């Protein structure tokens, strides 16, 4: 028994190193060295050029904050829609429920660009094209289906019993949500936050069209560089790009600590 556990552990670390650690470290290494060429492949040439280029992009810092802000709002809206719709889909029975569930998945099935172009005209008429409001709304299109799906499954596995129990004990709905739903749904909420943030961060075309260049997110600065053969700059950009969800994740984890029953120093005995 011990042996297989140990075996499994080794296996785990081998997979982690091959699939995760090595690529990330290699990217980091690439961002500090000149592109590998057959003449130079034995000794790496250290360079700061990738990072210098990155920070000489004068819109970088601002774009990072814009991306962070838009991402955060998109995540919050997703949680609101996802939690309420997920709850309804998990616990209520009504006519046309399966149809509604299928409809919610539609935005992933229909090409996003087609939706965007149609929505753009409506947004121009409403006066929210070229604004961050429009960009937030269009980012909801590819994210909401995931949020609803994940949180619906979260509620389904939670079951009605514990929620009914709370109902019987009679706290107000908000308190019930904070002390029962939120802590127990934490894994589902965590995946929703991470997934929707990453999707929102990496939207290039729809942000460009709806934002019209007035809303410059990180994707707008970063994506044109994908056409570059300069792997040093590309690596530096990619790391910066990946850092954002990572930072956001840490922030969210810190926020989670504020929830009831989440004290990290309370260890299970």
């Amino acid at each position: 028994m011990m042996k297989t556990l140990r075996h499994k552990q080794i296996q785990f670390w081998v997979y982690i190193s091959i699939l995760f650690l090595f690529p990330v470290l290699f990217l980091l290494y690439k961002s500090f060295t000149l592109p590998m060429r057959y003449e130079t492949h034995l000794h790496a040439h250290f360079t700061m050029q990738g990072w210098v280029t990155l920070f000489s992009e004068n819109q970088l810092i601002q774009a990072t904050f814009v991306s962070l802000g838009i991402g955060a709002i998109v995540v919050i809206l997703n949680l609101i829609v996802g939690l309420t719709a997920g709850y309804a889909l998990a616990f209520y029975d009504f006519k046309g429920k399966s149809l509604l569930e299928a409809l919610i998945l539609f935005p992933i099935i229909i090409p996003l660009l087609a939706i965007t172009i149609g929505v753009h005209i409506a947004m121009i008429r409403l006066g929210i094209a070229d604004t961050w409001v429009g960009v937030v709304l269009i980012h909801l299109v590819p994210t909401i289906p995931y949020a609803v799906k994940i949180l619906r499954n979260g509620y389904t596995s939670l079951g009605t019993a514990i929620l009914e129990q709370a109902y019987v004990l009679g706290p107000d709905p908000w308190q019930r949500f904070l002390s029962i739903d939120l802590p127990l749904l934490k894994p589902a909420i965590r995946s929703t936050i991470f997934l929707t943030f990453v999707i929102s961060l990496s939207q290039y075309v729809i942000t460009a069209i709806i934002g019209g260049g007035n809303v410059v997110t990180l994707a707008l600065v970063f994506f044109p560089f994908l056409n570059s053969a300069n792997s040093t700059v590309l690596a530096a950009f990619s790391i910066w790009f990946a850092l954002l969800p990572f930072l956001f994740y840490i922030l969210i984890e810190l926020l989670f600590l504020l929830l009831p029953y989440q004290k990290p120093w309370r260890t299970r005995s």
Partner: protein
Amino acid sequence: MKKYSLFMLIILLLTACGQSNNPNTQSIDFQHTSWSDITQKADSTTVNIHMWGGDEGINRYIDEWVAPKLKEQYNITLNRTPMDTQNILQKLHSEKRAGKQEGTIDVIWINGENFKNAKNNELLYRPFRDQLPNFKKYYDQESLAFQYDFGTAVDGYEAPWGKVQFVFQYNSNKIEEPPKSFEELKAWVKDNPGKFTYPNPDDFSGNAFLRHLLYQSADSPESIIEEPFSKQHATKHSQEMWSYLNEIEPHLWREGKHYPSTLSELDRLYSNGDVWMTMGYNEARAEHMIEDGVFPESTRSFVMESGSIGNTHFLAIPYNSPNKEGALTAINFLLSPNAQLKKLNPTYWGDNTPISIDKLSAEDQEKFQSLDRGKTVLPGKKLEESFLPEADSAYVEWLKENWKNEVIRND
């Protein structure tokens, strides 16, 4: 009832906003506006230039040189936004359909297919080029390169900003004497299996490589350039090209089973030493690549004796630009000898100038002629001699479609 009234409110909002078109399109009457009035109106305004942003040399040229100069000379704030031209046109198209008269973009960088699309859909502001003092003074008004953009008549809707020519790059450590013709290239490819390939024609540069072959395949480049596009004409003149491509295919990189899908993929192969040649528009592109350590120091460039295709790229103003005076002033500045000289300089961009050198002052002529574009750039005379204009842009699509049938499915 409550729900119903909310629904009605939304409907009302949607329809009401559709009608609020601004009748005042604020176009400038050039006949009655002198250039100094235009620059005066442009004073302390902001000009938004939307352009492809994937090259740091170009970005730095705009941000570090052009923007401060415009501020200094005209008190204009230039705001660069990275955005692909196709997306810009998509945005303008929707705005046109929604009747939006006040846009957000003042200047766009455009040519070829995109220009044709923009012009045909009336996404551009009316002809303005011939009003620019710098264009009138320093550019050859009659030049065919400014009259047609990939076969589409320019009609003054765009002003020439730069020009590029297609060149091949090779590693002079591996190849002593680069091929001079496509026949020699074929022989070289056969002698050096796996050391050459070209990007898939879905890529802009890969498509240009095929167009060179097409010119060669026809009796003379003129028969392709001057005739309007027709499928029969294209098919008739392309037989030799397809057989050439099929002949070299087994000797290409990975035996031609896979083609790089973009030029950057080919550049990476070249950078790794997997292939010994790469290619691309912009005769000076190797300079940057060497400086950044992507290409080996021994990279040099060459053109075929049969010629090299070049094209001009332009600046235009969208129909709903909110600051047309500012846009005109900025474009005029970008066309000035000073701005063109700086653009030619390899420290930033290294892009060639469409300006007529002989129209410049003796001092400026001297500056242009003495500028060292770098050792990988062919002499100006050589480039000029081999220059071939672009054919009708319909060939680009035609080549994409037929290449798959003729070369890929023909295995």
